[in-house]
């Protein structure tokens, strides 16, 4: 499947994707919902906890098919995470699903203490993350979550970039029995032509190159791929693109290799420029003594402009 490009992507981006032969997949949220349903069918100890969010979490089918395996807590995120911790303490495999904006701010102390510090293996699933909610505004955006959660010990932070990474991350999280945060957006995503599969904690090289490197995570990786392809077509530049689905623990070796081998690094994330992937990479590079040319692309430190996710991406370049 090539064009037409969905609203998320510009016409030019859609043409580039078609030229690269990229196949348009589904929103990661749908890939997540299908995967967790499959896991739950096979194991009745797999539970989903929701806070009046099964619709936006694409969990309607799950709730209808496996009503005994979905725990509804109403609009109460702190309770959602606390209850999830208790269920995990009793041996359940628990997916705690809530919009990322609420889950990672309202319930931050529960994430820190009840899940991470207490080492209860809850899989925290932040849905409609980043600026997925577009014009609903800053209350509904999660542009702080990497920064807040990176500072919490014993919590992995992951933002899969395509359906393949999402499915693999969900399965790895269920098997891993460790505290983890998974972040999913609402936009349909192109399947990345990455070599090799998803491995927790590892970067994936989506495009080779040494003129510059894009270090990207989550739903922004495809935009880095498209930009790299356009730079090559227009200027003959060969830019490396790394997908970093695991923001913590960061694949330091891949980041440092890019810093040594490429002439410039550009990090890309659907997050504030404060405290996210970009600053994580910057700290790593600086402490390794690599003074690579370096730029962080993210959302600036200000209230977000009004518009759709696509509008917001365009506005901030």
């Amino acid at each position, binding site marked *: 499947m090539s064009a037409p490009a969905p609203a998320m992507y510009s016409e030019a981006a859609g043409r580039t994707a078609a030229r690269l032969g990229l196949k348009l997949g589904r929103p990661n949220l749908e890939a997540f919902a299908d995967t967790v349903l499959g896991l739950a069918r096979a194991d009745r100890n797999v*539970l989903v906890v929701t806070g009046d969010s099964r619709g936006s979490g694409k969990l309607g089918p799950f709730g209808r098919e496996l009503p*005994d395996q979905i*725990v509804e*807590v*109403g609009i*109460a995120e*702190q*309770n959602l*995470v*606390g*209850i*999830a*911790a*208790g*269920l*995990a*303490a*009793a*041996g*359940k495999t628990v997916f705690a699903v809530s919009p990322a904006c609420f889950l990672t701010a309202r319930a931050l*102390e*529960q994430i820190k*203490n*009840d899940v991470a*510090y*207490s*080492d*209860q293996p809850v899989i925290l699933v932040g849905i409609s993350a980043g600026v997925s909610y577009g014009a609903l505004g800053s209350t509904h955006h999660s542009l702080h979550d990497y920064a807040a959660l990176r500072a919490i010990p014993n919590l992995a932070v992951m933002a899969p970039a395509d359906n393949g990474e999402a499915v693999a991350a969900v399965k790895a999280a269920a098997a891993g029995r460790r505290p983890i945060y998974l972040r999913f957006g609402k936009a349909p995503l192109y399947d990345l032509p990455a070599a090799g599969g998803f491995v927790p904690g590892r970067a994936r090289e989506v495009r080779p190159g040494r003129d510059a490197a894009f270090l990207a995570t989550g739903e922004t990786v495809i935009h880095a791929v498209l930009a790299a392809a356009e730079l090559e077509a227009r200027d003959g530049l060969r830019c490396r693109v790394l997908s970093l689905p695991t923001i913590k623990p960061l694949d330091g070796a891949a980041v440092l290799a890019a810093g040594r081998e490429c002439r410039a690094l550009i990090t890309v994330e659907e997050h504030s420029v404060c405290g996210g992937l970009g600053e994580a990479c910057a700290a790593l590079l600086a402490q390794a003594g690599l003074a690579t040319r370096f730029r962080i692309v993210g959302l600036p430190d200000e209230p977000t402009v009004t518009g759709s996710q696509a509008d917001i991406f365009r506005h901030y370049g």
Partner: protein
Amino acid sequence: MPSDRELALKSLHYRRRILEVIKHAGGGHTGGSLSCVDILNVLYNRVLRVSPATAADPGRDRYIQSKGHSVEALYVVLADRGFFPDAELATLGKYQSRLIGHPTRHVPGIEQNTGALGHGLAVAVGLAIAGKKDRATYRVFTLLGDGEMAEGSVWEAAMAAGHYRLDNLNAIVDQNSLQITGRTRDVLNSEPLEAKFGAFGWVVRTVNGHDLKALSATLAAPPVNNRPVAIIAKTIKGKGVSFMEDNPKWHHAVPNDEEYARAMQELDAAVADLERRPA
């Protein structure tokens, strides 16, 4: 199971040990530990189906201390029940000790890390829901403070417990009526707790939190079909040491040498008095 007399002696022993541990550590939550220790005594010696040998048994009863700051009482009782050596109590708060100033799962017998208030009840609700799903027979107990009732998350969890009809869940409120700033009713009135829990669908029982017989009867009472149970334990902060009782100063004060000697004399006299009485 200990006799009433043995249980009463344990309470006095625990109080002595709490003061020893806090004095040695140079810090601790004295008043709250003394207010809840009778509750813990009854739970761990008469009610909870837990032991060091069955600490990982999926069918064990669960206790979550939501008012985590009263950890000295919990450590003393757990040590007495053999979860870790009593001598280890001397390491409380010392460099690299696993006995931290709030409960953690690094300590045998502790189910959940607490200390930030308003967290324990939700975790207990999760354990209780899991128990229902598994048709398990374990019961879940959690201990909260009355100052803690100001945390909104307590009431989120209370609402969920009522909604899910968690009759395997028991929330005990150590209602000592004091918090760090002063009287709870003056700081932020949490009363009437009975009416509040009742409105959330709970069965509510009020008990003298220092009457070991009454506590035993209340905490060991069979579940009420489809309803969680709130036990409002009327207690006295600093209970057992005359000059610490009902005085907010002792929230986390450490007795000086003279105060410590007086406190120990009072508790020793109470032990001697109890031992003189006919069995």
